[in-house]
């Protein structure tokens, strides 16, 4: 298997940062997740270790005591050389329902005009692609998705909105994503996802993990309204398939 040239840097006394080559690349992300899984399984199983993978980095945090950087970074490098093919975590493709209705997708019409495509074409392009989750952050449950087709790239709105509705699905630059909560934002809103991306009542408040994949599918307004009622009482069902079994 590939072993990249990794760099390890201190990040305060309780954390350190491992970096892979500076690129948005599935192979790099996969290698990061393999290493995270390997560390978790073999060496750093304690709950006090937290690991944050994102794009080309893995941050390790140990809150119980200061980390001896020199010693520990040498140890990590040695562990990295032992990394084997087998240690890839299970990952999923999630199918997420989105209602691309003009009332919810408040910018859908202007997006279709700016891209010189019909609304239907925009929706088809957005739903035909499978996106990779490169990171989760910014807000609880917010996914950084990679893989937007270049034909859907368009700048964010000149004037950010003070309030974007929870569940809104947006486009901005090379990114697409879902607002997991109501928040200010400048993305172009093309629809709304009917399942909550963040639910603090669940043991795992965000079902998606970094490295998973996401595909959107179009639902009608009636289906959307029904899903919203189901979500309120916590009985929404999610469609997922394993993709690296």
């Amino acid at each position, binding site marked *: 298997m590939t072993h990249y040239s990794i760099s390890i*840097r201190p990040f305060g006394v309780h954390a350190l940062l491992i970096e892979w080559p500076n690129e948005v690349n599935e192979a790099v992300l996969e290698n990061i997740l393999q290493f995270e899984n390997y560390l978790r399984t073999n060496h750093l199983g304690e709950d006090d270790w937290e690991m944050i993978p994102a794009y080309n980095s893995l941050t390790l945090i140990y809150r119980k005591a200061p980390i001896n950087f020199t010693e520990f970074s040498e140890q990590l490098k040695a562990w990295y050389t032992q990394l084997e093919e087998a240690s890839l975590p299970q990952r999923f493709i999630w199918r997420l329902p989105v209602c691309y209705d003009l009332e919810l997708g408040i910018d859908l019409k202007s997006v279709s005009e700016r891209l010189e495509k019909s609304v239907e074409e925009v929706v088809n392009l957005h739903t035909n692609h499978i996106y990779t989750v490169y990171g989760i952050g910014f807000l609880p449950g917010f996914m950084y998705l990679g893989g937007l087709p270049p034909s859907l790239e368009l700048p964010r709105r000149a004037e950010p909105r003070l309030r974007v509705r929870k569940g809104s699905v947006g486009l901005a630059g090379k990114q697409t994503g879902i607002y997991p909560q109501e928040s200010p934002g400048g993305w172009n809103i093309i629809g709304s996802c009917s399942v909550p991306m963040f639910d603090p009542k669940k043991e795992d408040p965000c079902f998606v993990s970094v490295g998973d994949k996401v595909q959107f599918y179009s639902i009608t307004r009636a289906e959307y309204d029904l899903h919203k009622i189901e979500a309120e009482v916590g009985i929404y069902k999610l469609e997922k398939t394993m993709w690296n079994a």
Partner: protein
Amino acid sequence: MLKVLKSGLFTTIQDAGRFGYLNKGVPVAGFMDTASAHKVNQLLENTIDSAVMEITMTGPILEFDNPTFICIGGAKHSVALNNDYIENFKVYKVSPGDILSFGKLEKGFRSYLAIKNGFKTDVILGSRSMYAPVTPRSHLEDNQTIAYESCEVFSPKIDELKVDSFLDSKVLTVSKGPEYGLLDDRRLEVLFFQNFTIANENDRMAYQLVEHIVGHKVSMLTSATLPGTVQLTPSGKIMILMKDGQTTGGYPRIFQLSDKAISILAQKKFGDIISFRLV
């Protein structure tokens, strides 16, 4: 139950914070000034991470319905238990019907009210720390009630602590952040030899500073951020992430505050002066 007669400006319940969900984008939250929160818990012989009330600038008015013991500390407010003023870092007995009123802020920014055995609000994702949308509310509201255990008898081993106050400390000790390397001599000189002023934009998520330094054109991929991470924006603005800060960011992380420095900064408000010192 403790009844919140008036909630004050931004009063919350906090414990050590929420761990294990950073990879889902959930901030740690928890005590802003951990040093003071630990001390008030210790005086009551609570576990140090018991849930306390964090009081920001304008404090609440509270009514107790059961006997217990309390201790306040952190910022200096004028605080009255019924008609008597009480002091920081000293254990007091309260009786049913007693009213605790936080008055004028004299020094610092955040006070902590600890109660014997801690406040018993709901534990969500492993913590009682208030942070919306994890907890339904981001702060306490008027007329809300908060559960606590009744305690009739308690004789503290130490009932008053002469605390080495850091409210006057201006120096934040920092270590190098992952992108420290982008700072050239010109920027380093400004960062380590000048004072900075706390901007109006300061809250549990982040503190901004009034003075800017020379900006940069470094573009980096989104990566993890922590409480105490000092970010430098392209325009040269300095932002220090605090306990409710986002878990990932795309700005260079030039410094990382020490735990003590996070507590010191948590006691600063708009217009206060700080400086950085590298350890």
